[in-house]
């Protein structure tokens, strides 16, 4: 770390010394942590990267600050600079004061006194953040030993047990001796939180703490963070790219772009009255899980600037639809929006953006595409894919030489559904629920499979020779999750797109023509065909992946988490493209995604999977607005919504524990072990759940509705597998945060 605490760089508006002086004067007296004019520069091969450019922030005890931004916006670097954990090659300047004491410029050794004691941090990836060779207990106790060397071994152990219990780890005393690999991701993140709060920190920084976790586990971990904050009274910095996660938790928000805060303010100001086009775009780019209304997402075109050169104008100007020449003249400083209060935005047009400006107009969101199939009733459309009772069981064996079968993992256990022309069908569920295995079974298309797969009229049972398989591949193509890993780095885009066409036996001229068509279709410049994948951004690479899938004109495209690796603003563009292609080409999609908001936005029908079985299936709006299966209800309630007021009062079902191992699957209903309804049932009814497997049954309109219509009504397109869909929920699993409790902004 650099030892200099002042900097020669000049701020945009005032001379540096004056700026720091004024900021120092205005720092609230009760702030635990005050950061002023934080700048971080890295030396890279291409020159100096100015990763953080003048961050000011104040943290109040017990309050939560959310830092939001895309990857590369400088959020994580800011937090690491505060912790003093940046590599020694980073050049840090400015001021970080913890209760009045300056932290910048302290040696690594001097910082050790604060780190883990008054300043604590939770990192993104719980799988790699714990040392694999030490027990969980050792690692918690280490945090105590460092700052309290005098504490007795017994006291430390007692405190470790207390901490594990606080973060919700069952039988904490025994778990002390467990190694990290014996814990699931969610449990490990709980341990990380336990380590962070071990010494009652004043400031707790959480850097994307739930990004690597399933939604149900995310809800649990956010709940633990909430408890941790209540127990310690710490100021929390929540760094995330997910505007939903912070909506319910944060008191204040700081939006970062290109290493600078571009808008700061109370959470309600930011969500309901954004004054910076970038914030507006971010909010408009996120699909909502709780809204059925269909409107296109707001794509923010372009890429964030690289920070090798200091921007001469507003750093967002190249991507901003409102940019004018005035925007290019000097970088706008954060200025109070209404001349008073804490809501500030770095935009010269912020005054004009208040009130009822619609983000869809500002960013010119494309109109909602209409497919020619939308008008045709579903029953009259051709089936493009049908699964009949598809099963995939893996034998679980033990023993080195002679393998004994000790059980069966039912990864996919009797899944049936069909996809019609022009519709998007999605499969959702936690990791381990069998979504991906279902996709693999469809791609496998082999005679010996358990169950029938019919793709465009071709059944895997009738013929599984190479010719049929080749024909099947022309009906069905796949787009993968990681666009970088799915493209050969040594192939130009032309070669990537030509390969499937050559396999289809097209001649060179036709291939060339088709590739140009494809590039235009997915919104890429046709003259970029000779570039290599690494010359494109993540979103563009995913477009190449989509173009490759579309090359042979398939009827059905299988999308395996197509946008989960992309930033929100880029994600919106890809989702809009998928929507557009479906309408224009009459495609059908089979989508697997863990983000239910994306699923709701793009799908027509949805299936919810749990432990290899479909527990609820039907029309997406019906399932999401009126979920019947307790698991669907829990999943939906776990998803944070980018709406602070709603988020604060929302009732949340927090499922206990993780997805059980498939070996322990109960005989009756799979979900009984975690079911909030089951927990509240009387024992007599519980018996039914435990012994009988609930069948997937349709929802019939109530007798009253039938009488009202005066005619037999068609059953709704919604089926679910639960005996007691209307049962009361167990109160222990329900969590509501009263707005008055701690979130009055």
């Amino acid at each position, binding site marked *: 770390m650099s030892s200099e605490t002042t900097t020669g760089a000049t701020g945009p508006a005032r001379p540096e010394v004056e700026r720091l002086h004024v900021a120092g004067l205005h720092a609230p007296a009760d702030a635990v942590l005050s950061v002023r004019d934080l700048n971080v520069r890295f030396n890279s091969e291409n020159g100096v990267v100015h990763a953080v450019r003048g961050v000011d922030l104040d943290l109040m005890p017990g309050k939560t600050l959310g830092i939001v931004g895309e990857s590369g916006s400088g959020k994580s670097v800011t937090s690491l600079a505060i912790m003093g954990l940046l590599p020694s090659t980073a050049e840090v300047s400015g001021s970080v004061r913890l209760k009045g004491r300056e932290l910048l410029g302290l040696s690594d050794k001097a910082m050790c006194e*604060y780190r883990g004691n008054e300043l604590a941090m939770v990192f993104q990836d719980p799988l790699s953040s714990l040392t694999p*060779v030490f027990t969980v207990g050792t690692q918690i106790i280490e945090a105590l030993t*460092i700052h309290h060397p005098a504490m007795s071994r017994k006291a430390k152990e007692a405190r470790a047990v207390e901490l594990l219990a606080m973060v919700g780890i069952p039988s904490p005393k025994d778990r002390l001796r467990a190694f990290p690999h014996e814990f699931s991701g969610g449990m490990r993140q709980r341990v990380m939180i336990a380590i962070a709060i071990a010494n009652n920190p004043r400031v707790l920084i959480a850097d994307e703490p739930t990004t690597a976790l399933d939604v149900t586990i995310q809800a649990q971990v956010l709940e633990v963070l909430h408890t941790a904050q209540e127990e310690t009274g710490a100021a929390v910095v929540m760094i995330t790219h997910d505007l939903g996660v912070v909506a319910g938790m944060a008191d204040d928000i700081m939006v970062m772009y290109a290493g600078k805060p571009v808008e700061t303010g109370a959470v309600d100001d930011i969500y309901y009255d954004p004054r910076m086009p970038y914030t507006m775009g971010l909010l408009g780019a996120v699909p909502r899980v709780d809204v059925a209304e269909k409107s296109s997402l707001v794509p923010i075109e372009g890429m964030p600037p690289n920070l090798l050169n200091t921007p001469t104008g507003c750093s967002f100007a190249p991507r901003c639809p409102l940019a004018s020449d005035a925007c290019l003249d000097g970088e706008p400083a954060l200025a109070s929006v209404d001349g008073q209060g804490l809501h500030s935005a770095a935009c010269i047009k912020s005054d004009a953006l208040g009130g009822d400006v619609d983000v869809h107009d500002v960013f010119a969101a494309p109109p909602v595409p209409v497919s020619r199939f939308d008008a045709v009733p579903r029953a009259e459309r051709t089936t493009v894919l049908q699964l009949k009772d598809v099963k995939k069981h893996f034998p679980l064996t033990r023993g080195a030489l002679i393998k004994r079968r000790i059980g069966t993992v039912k990864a996919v256990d009797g899944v049936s559904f069909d996809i019609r022309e022009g519709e998007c069908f999605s499969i959702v569920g936690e990791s381990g629920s069998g979504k991906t295995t279902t996709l693999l079974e469809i791609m496998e298309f082999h005679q010996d499979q358990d169950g029938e797969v019919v793709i465009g009229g071709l059944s895997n049972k009738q013929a599984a020779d190479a010719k049929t398989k080749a024909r099947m591949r022309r009906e069905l193509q796949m787009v993968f999750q990681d666009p970088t890993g799915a493209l050969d780095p040594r192939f130009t885009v032309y070669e990537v797109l030509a390969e499937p066409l050559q396999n289809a036996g097209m001649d060179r001229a036709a291939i060339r023509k088709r590739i140009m068509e494809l590039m235009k279709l997915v919104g890429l410049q046709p003259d970029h065909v000779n570039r290599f994948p690494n010359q494109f951004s993540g979103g563009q690479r995913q477009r190449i992946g989509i173009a490759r899938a579309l090359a042979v004109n398939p009827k059905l495209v299988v999308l395996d988490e197509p946008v989960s690796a992309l930033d929100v603003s880029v994600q919106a563009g890809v989702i809009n493209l998928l929507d557009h292609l479906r309408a224009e080409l009459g495609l059908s999609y089979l989508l697997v995604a863990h983000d239910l908001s994306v699923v709701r936005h793009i799908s027509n029908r949805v299936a919810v999977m749990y432990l290899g079985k479909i527990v609820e299936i039907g029309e997406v709006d019906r399932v999401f607005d009126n979920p019947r299966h307790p698991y669907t209800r829990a999943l939906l309630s776990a998803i944070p919504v980018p709406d602070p007021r709603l988020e604060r009062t929302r009732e949340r079902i927090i499922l206990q524990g993780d997805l059980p191992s498939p070996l322990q699957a109960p005989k009756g209903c799979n979900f009984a072990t975690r079911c909030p309804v089951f927990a509240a049932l009387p024992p007599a009814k519980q018996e039914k759940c435990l012994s009988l497997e609930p069948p997937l049954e349709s929802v019939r309109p109530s007798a009253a509705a039938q009488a009202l219509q005066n005619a037999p009504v068609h059953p709704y397109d919604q089926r679910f597998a639960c005996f007691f869909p209307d049962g009361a929920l167990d109160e222990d699993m329900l969590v509501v945060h009263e707005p008055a409790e701690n979130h009055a902004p």
Partner: protein
Amino acid sequence: MLKYLAKRGITYLVMIFLTTSAGYFLAVSSLKPALLEQERIPRPTPEQVANSMRLKGLDPDLSPWERYVDWLTGIVTRWDWGRSPNGAYINAEFGDRVWISTRLFLASIILTLVIGVALGVYSAARQYKFQDRAITSYSYLAYIVPAPIAYFLVQLGAININETVGSRIFFVTGISTPGISPGWPQFVDLLAHYVVPTLAITLVGWGAYQIAQRQYLLDNVNADFVRTARAKGLSRNQAIARHALRVSFIPVAQSIAFTIPAIFAGGFFAEKIFAWPGVGSWSIDAISLQDVNAATATLAYGSVIFAIGAILADFATTLVDPRVRVQ
């Protein structure tokens, strides 16, 4: 753990049996000691040769399978590994030579490991500084220079010292001086014989460990869990010492299995150059002398050493890595 080790032991026993049997068949069908006998002066008659061979259990008229059965019965029932064409008993000669090899290599293996790992850690902690560059460059040099040349260089160095001082401090060949009185003088003599080969083998050997340990540690220095340890309040060096070091030792521990047998069985250069008649040089001699039983015995010995090394590596890995701990 014991049960696991026993299981591994049995697996290796089967493997040793298979390699040794295969080795015996190869030796018995390609090595013809009778041909060498015939080159003696005065030239013996074929009957005489066959007779002398038959007496030593090396009857060339029997089929390979019959000889294999005889040989195996001898080992299983009497632990008799047969005789050489010159009449020597394999068991007796093997006993002498194993002891010589062990004395030659044991100290240098331990030194190689300790110095290599320690220097690896030292250089990783000072990445790209002068010490790191010097140590790592040396290790690569030791990698490149063929072992015999390095041994000769050390010998020359020792001779140089002897000449400079004017008296013979180091012996550059041999195991001990015959006819020295027991007690202190014998110990000094032993040491004087030991130093040069041990030093030579160690100097050449540690490079591989240094490079591996440095690399694995550097892979872990910026690991997420080291960052977590620092966030708890450990300084960078403390975090590396307590958290990264042990994780980085896991792959090094595994590599031991494959270097120990290589040093033992492949040590014939050292044995030849320093004139220590151990197992390594014996295995080469056995082939040139068409000695079926000796060649097979050295092969069996190599397999046993490999198994021991592998079990040691398993043991070391289990010790440092809880993820592979067996229930």
